[in-house]
């Protein structure tokens, strides 16, 4: 059986040497890391509704404070104080796709951005960080620009929990 051992040794050695000559260990590690990190980025680890922002505006201020620039036309509880963030819903709630949209000026760069106030729905009112700034808010007979409406439309439950403020575009100069 010695011949078999010798044959196995030689074949293994030559094939492993072949692989190590043709590939780099860094390349292999890079690919593995890509798979691991890429997987984490594409498959969220937590059951939280997330939004990617485009454009990403310059930032200053505290997103859990009602004074924060994006909340200029909000009326509700800030999701950042309810287990979510300014652009994601707390676990156990669902982000309403149907929403109301306005513009706010960002003090960090002086530009006006288009902000979508998607509500998070499916749990009773959060109760933390009530914020009512209502700039540009219009009466309910003008429903598209009224924040007094329960915007939990298109979700499996219409129970309102909290509001996000997601930047979806740059407004034009008036």
């Amino acid at each position, binding site marked *: 059986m010695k011949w078999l051992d010798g044959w196995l040794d030689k074949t293994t050695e030559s094939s492993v040497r072949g692989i190590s000559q043709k590939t780099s260990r860094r390349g292999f590690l890079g690919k593995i890391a890509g798979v691991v990190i890429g997987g984490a980025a594409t498959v969220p680890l937590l059951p939280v509704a997330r939004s990617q922002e485009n454009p990403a505006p310059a930032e200053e201020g505290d997103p859990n404070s009602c004074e924060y620039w994006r909340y200029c036309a909000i009326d509700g509880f800030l999701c950042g104080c309810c287990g979510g963030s300014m652009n994601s819903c707390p676990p156990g709630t669902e982000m309403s*796709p*149907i*929403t*109301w*949209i*306005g*513009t706010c000026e960002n003090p960090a760069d002086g530009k006006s951005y*288009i902000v*979508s106030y998607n509500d998070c729905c499916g749990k009773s009112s959060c109760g933390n960080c009530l914020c009512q700034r209502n700039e540009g808010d219009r009466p309910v007979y*003008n429903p*598209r*620009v009224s924040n007094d409406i329960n915007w939990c*439309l*298109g979700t499996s439950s219409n129970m309102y929990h909290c509001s996000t403020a997601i930047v*979806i*575009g*740059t*407004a*034009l100069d008036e």
Partner: protein
Amino acid sequence: MALVRLSLLTVLLAGAALADDERAHVNYMLHCQGCHLPEAQGFEGKVPPMKDFAGYFLHSGEGREFLIRVPGVAQSALNDGELAELMNWLLVTFSAEQLPDRYVPFTGDEVASLRQDPVIDPATSRELILNRLSADIPVLAAERQQKN
């Protein structure tokens, strides 16, 4: 020199068209997207889709009028010119394939007169118009049959 002037004019015109598209898109975001969603896909049972669909309406006169007479358009805060620009952008951006071969864009004047007379019951009017259009557009007829 004429050539330079011509290319300068082309650049200027292209720039103007680009700015208008951007304004139309911003107006879409501010006045339509909240309900019709970013790709104009609508929401089954609640908000009618415009994506790969709105262009069908331009195959008949009443369909063309309907697009401006629906409450969301007719009663919009936009002025007639902005509204025409937005509708033309929307049709080409989201539903170019469904447009008729001889598609004529909306003008501000046309929008101004049509929006004076908003439809009272848009869901019923929509069904009637689409039923009539289906007789002439087999693809639309098939699409609607599949849905029902």
